[in-house]
């Protein structure tokens, strides 16, 4: 076994253990922390696959941005020490059966299919190629999805501000307090 195989086993074990813990732990802040571990080990896998730019995006945007956003909203909406009541036995059994059946089906299909390895030389993915790919209209260019995603980002930014800003009947509590 070579060093990169050991690294892969380490990352794979971390991802599997922590993603199962993310969906089964009963404390919400722990779930967010385990999700952070999963995302960081995923970026390790991206480094192993030689996609350094994507690994950096994964670290800064997912592990740095989304997890912090999730932790903020956890702190705003629930008590940290609060434990979830465990979901009903029937629900757990049927959900586990459904996901296990899907996983087994997918794994059997993957092992059954004969992936033919290519002998084509790998293209180096450097910043130059990425920038040209984003803004080019040629065969290897992705300017249309780039523009679509920029519109989506703008729309979701405005949407998030408008939704979160809107006041509503939630002020009932404060007004009754004031009357007292």
């Amino acid at each position, binding site marked *: 076994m*070579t060093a*990169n195989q050991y690294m892969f086993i380490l990352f794979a074990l971390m991802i599997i253990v922590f993603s199962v813990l993310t969906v089964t732990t009963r404390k919400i802040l722990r779930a967010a922390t385990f999700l952070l571990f999963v995302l960081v080990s995923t970026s390790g896998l991206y480094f192993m696959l030689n996609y350094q730019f994507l690994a950096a995006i994964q670290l800064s945007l997912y592990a740095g941005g989304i997890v912090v956003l999730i932790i903020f*909203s956890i702190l705003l909406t629930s008590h940290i020490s609060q434990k979830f009541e465990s979901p009903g036995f029937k629900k757990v059994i049927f959900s586990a059966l459904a996901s296990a059946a899907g996983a087994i089906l997918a794994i059997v299909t993957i092992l059954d299919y004969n992936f033919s390895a*290519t002998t084509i*030389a790998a293209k180096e993915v450097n910043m130059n190629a990425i920038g040209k790919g984003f803004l080019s209209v040629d065969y290897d260019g992705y300017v249309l999805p780039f523009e679509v995603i920029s519109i989506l980002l703008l729309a*979701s930014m405005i949407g998030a501000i408008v939704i979160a800003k809107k006041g509503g009947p939630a002020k009932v509590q404060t007004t009754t307090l004031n009357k007292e």
Partner: protein
Amino acid sequence: MSAGIPVQYFLILATVMFFAGVYGFLTRRNLITILMSVELILNSVNINFLAFNRYLYPHKMEGMFFSIFVIAVAACEAAVAIAIIINIYRRFTTINVEDVNEMKF
């Protein structure tokens, strides 16, 4: 860097992560933990994209670009979802999906 590791290992890893996310999506009741399960699912799809790109089509960059777009969509989705969750919390003082069943303005 990925020499000696078959592509199937990456795909199996992504499958396990995906169905862990599906399990969480089905069993959780808190809206934020449901959002975390969705993030797991999106992340596992990214691993698949990149493994296919690196192992089967190393002379192209489709998988990497669409992983970037998936990450952007996930960020948008998280931002809007958290805005909605906080608004729901203000209105109902809970984010349990079984208590928030009133589609009323």
